[in-house]
């Protein structure tokens, strides 16, 4: 935060703009942190699905498998289990993509606000 640009006797308009930006930065940064954590979590889940796939791949097709749903286990077979794991991983991917998009949006809007503040400052300084 570049507090240096602020003189002790800044005009109120600038001060207000500056404060707004600070609030925005704070909320945006928090939101981005949340998104980052979500993305990490999803990436881990993809990793997990891939690991499971490779483990299960070592088994014969005839081995009975049960899929966990809540607390119960439902009889399935290797092909179905593998297919489900694949769709799961793909779902996670799309979720990550949409999260990345919203992150980009947040970054951009923050930059825009910074830019407009900078412009405001230069206009004010130009006046002096």
């Amino acid at each position, binding site marked *: 935060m570049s507090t240096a640009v602020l003189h002790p006797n800044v005009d109120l308009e600038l001060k207000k703009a500056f404060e707004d930006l*600070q609030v925005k930065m704070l909320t945006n940064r928090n939101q981005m942190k949340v998104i980052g954590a979500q993305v990490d979590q999803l990436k881990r889940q993809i990793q997990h699905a891939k690991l499971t796939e490779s483990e299960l791949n070592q088994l014969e097709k005839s081995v009975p498998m049960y899929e966990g749903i809540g607390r*119960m286990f439902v009889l399935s077979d290797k092909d179905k289990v593998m297919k489900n794991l694949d769709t799961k991983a793909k779902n996670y991917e799309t979720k990550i993509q949409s999260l990345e998009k919203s992150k980009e949006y947040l970054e951009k809007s923050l930059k825009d606000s910074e830019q407009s503040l900078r412009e405001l400052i230069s206009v004010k300084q130009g006046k002096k």
Partner: protein
Amino acid sequence: MSAEPQQEGIYLNKLSLQQLEQIKNQLTQEINVLQESMHRLKMVQQSFVTSDQSLDQMKNVEDNKQLLVPLTGSLYVPGKLISNNKVLVDIGTGYYVQKPVDDAKKYFEKKIQYLAKQMDQIQPILQQKAIMREEVMEVFTQKYQMQLQVQKAAAGAQ
């Protein structure tokens, strides 16, 4: 950050070290309580998310499908699903409702949203309190340093 609540800054400056410490402790306590309830809400929400997801998965399971039924936390027996696209939902205060899977899903989604709203209400308060505590601590260190210097100066003068 200190630029924000100017009046408060002035107000804080008037307080003694002891009072500041007291305020800090109180804020810490409040923050802890809020954080704990956030945590609890998140846990409950997560368990509803699992219920919701389980229903999604259940939609793909045909009736009479073979399964392992959990009788207790550690005991499973072979059985068949006869849910008939219906489930039993515990709606609280001793009432249970048997309804179609899709309706049950709606129920859990509503719960998830309600909890999200609750958390959204707490979050800004938590943030505000954290900022306030930071301010109080800042003023505290300033005052403390000043007092030390005054003491030193007094000792030097003697």
